[in-house]
């Protein structure tokens, strides 16, 4: 083999390896599990605090969970502690390096065009605490809601298994905080119950009275058994395993989306990406992914799924990655994923980081690399536009989701990242910030959270 051949082969190899999607960052639309940076200086103290709480709970409830816990999946009811000024917050020891000046958003979940919840970090008497806020007037005012009594989760291996990084509410009473732990509330956050599904929860969704939780694997971190999809009535009850949906679902690569009675599960992990769907949330069948397959020349990797109705589905594919760019294609289906049509190619800038579908023809695609972008297409035949660009070094947006064709929300620069920046002695204005749109993602406005 001569040098030219070696160089060509090396180029092809590097491109091919780089094309394999880096597990995407913070959650996406039907949000994925956030990939947040480590928060190491806090972790030891937090883990000790949580471990103490877990031991106390274990002693209180014994080895079989709470009395009456259904289905063998342990449900431990907990009333959030009530520190002096921040209800429900688990205190993190205060240091000058970890002080933050205001609420920093981590994850958002709106249940209507006016009511929503935001999980994040807030200053507290002891330093920095996990916090939850609620609005009923589309962000004009915010009230304090007790958060689950745990810490902020990251993808770091030392993250407490009870920690949470995402929040999802089905209505103003029923909600869940997850990633990797799972906590449920059915009274708007006054009481939280921990739920043990046997492994880290990487994605959640709810619709038509059912909540769905996708578990990465069992016996984490050794992952001796594949993960599963579980479902539970949103108003409470047992979590039951959904037949026919199992796999080693990856953090950041697996997504569950629920709309109406339909449920879609996408996992982009190579070499066997999967896209499956159910019209009733119970009986699942495989769909043929529109992503290219094994070719290294095109956007062949399945990276996201979103839906605006049981029949209107969008799938995002990526490939041909280069420095700061990647080919990204979005395919639309009008028959529940049985067939797909390609939209115009999305802009090359950045790696895909989120997909959202507010209506049958409108799709928004998040991307980040040297910057953070939101791309939007309003019709399959039109060109993509870029309604939002942050020249932020690519911190990325997360949790982009819509409650209807017009109203949506997202978080720019999740709180966990901001915290690590502040720990390093910096102040970063504009991160951990909530953005709202009222016109299907055409325009976005920052929404400060003051309470």
């Amino acid at each position, binding site marked *: *083999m*001569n*040098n030219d051949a*070696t*160089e060509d*082969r*090396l*180029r*092809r*190899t*590097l*491109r*091919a*390896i*780089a094309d*394999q999607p*880096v*597990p995407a960052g913070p959650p996406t639309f039907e949000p994925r599990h956030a*990939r947040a*940076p*480590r928060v190491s200086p806090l972790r030891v103290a937090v883990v000790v605090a949580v471990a103490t709480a877990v031991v106390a709970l274990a002693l209180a409830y014994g080895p079989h969970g709470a009395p009456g816990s259904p289905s063998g999946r342990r449900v431990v009811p907990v009333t959030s502690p009530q520190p002096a000024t921040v209800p429900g917050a688990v205190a993190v020891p205060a240091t000058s390096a970890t002080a933050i000046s205001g609420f920093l958003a981590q994850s958002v979940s709106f249940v209507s065009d006016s009511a929503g919840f935001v999980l994040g970090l807030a200053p507290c008497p002891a330093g920095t605490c996990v916090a939850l806020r609620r609005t009923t007037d589309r962000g004009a005012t915010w009230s304090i809601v007790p958060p689950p009594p745990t810490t902020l989760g990251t993808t770091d291996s030392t993250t407490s298994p009870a920690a949470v990084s995402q929040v999802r509410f089905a209505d103003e009473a029923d909600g869940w905080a997850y990633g990797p732990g799972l906590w449920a509330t059915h009274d708007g956050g006054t009481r939280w119950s921990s739920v043990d599904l046997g492994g880290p929860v990487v994605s959640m969704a709810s619709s038509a009275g059912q909540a769905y939780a996708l578990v990465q694997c069992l016996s984490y971190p050794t992952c001796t058994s594949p993960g599963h999809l579980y479902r539970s009535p949103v108003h409470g009850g047992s979590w039951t395993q959904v037949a026919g949906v199992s796999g080693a679902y990856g953090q950041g690569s697996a997504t569950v989306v629920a709309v109406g009675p339909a449920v879609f599960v996408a996992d982009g992990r*190579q*070499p066997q990406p999967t896209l499956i769907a159910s019209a009733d949330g119970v009986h699942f069948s495989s769909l043929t992914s529109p992503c290219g397959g*094994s070719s*290294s020349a095109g956007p062949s990797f399945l990276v996201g799924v979103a839906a605006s109705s049981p029949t209107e589905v969008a799938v995002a594919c990526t490939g041909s*990655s280069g*420095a*700061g760019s990647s080919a990204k294609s979005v395919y639309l289906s009008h028959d529940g994923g049985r067939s797909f049509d390609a939209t115009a190619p999305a802009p090359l800038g950045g790696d895909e980081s989120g997909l959202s579908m507010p209506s049958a023809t409108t799709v928004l695609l998040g991307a980040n*690399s*040297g910057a953070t972008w939101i791309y939007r297409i309003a019709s399959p035949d039109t060109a993509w536009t870029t309604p939002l660009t942050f020249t932020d*070094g*690519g*911190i990325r947006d997360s949790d982009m989701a819509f409650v209807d064709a017009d109203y949506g929300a997202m978080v720019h620069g999740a709180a966990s*990242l901001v915290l*690590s*920046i502040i720990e*390093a*002695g*910096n102040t*970063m204005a504009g991160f951990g910030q909530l953005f709202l749109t009222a016109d299907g993602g055409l325009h976005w406005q920052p929404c400060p959270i003051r309470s």
Partner: protein
Amino acid sequence: MIRLARLITGSTVLAEEIVQEAFLAVFRLRQWPDNPEAYLRTTVTNLCRSHLRRLRVERAAAVTEDLHVWNPDIDETWQALGRLPLRHRGVLVLRFYEDMSESEIAAVLGCRLGTVKSRLHRGLEKLRGELS
């Protein structure tokens, strides 16, 4: 940037930590660099080197992560690249993935042009030997 770090270190986990550290390094600057992307690339590359040195894994820094591939040629080349010393692997990644010129690589690595030429030559030679 994560891709660059992953190609050099062979580890997605380490690459993510390195890129995060690089961002933090940029944020620590009192003055925003004229070319943030170039600054980040240099920082990521240098952090890859220093991380692996610190972990004393340079000699054993073979690509151990199970990155699934679909082409035997690519698989073989990737494994062979992982067996190269870090100083050679980093230069090859910058040259053949980032498409940087030898002068640009020298600037990124803070070494002489001749050193880059030498590492490129030896790296390719070793790679060719591994693949033959």
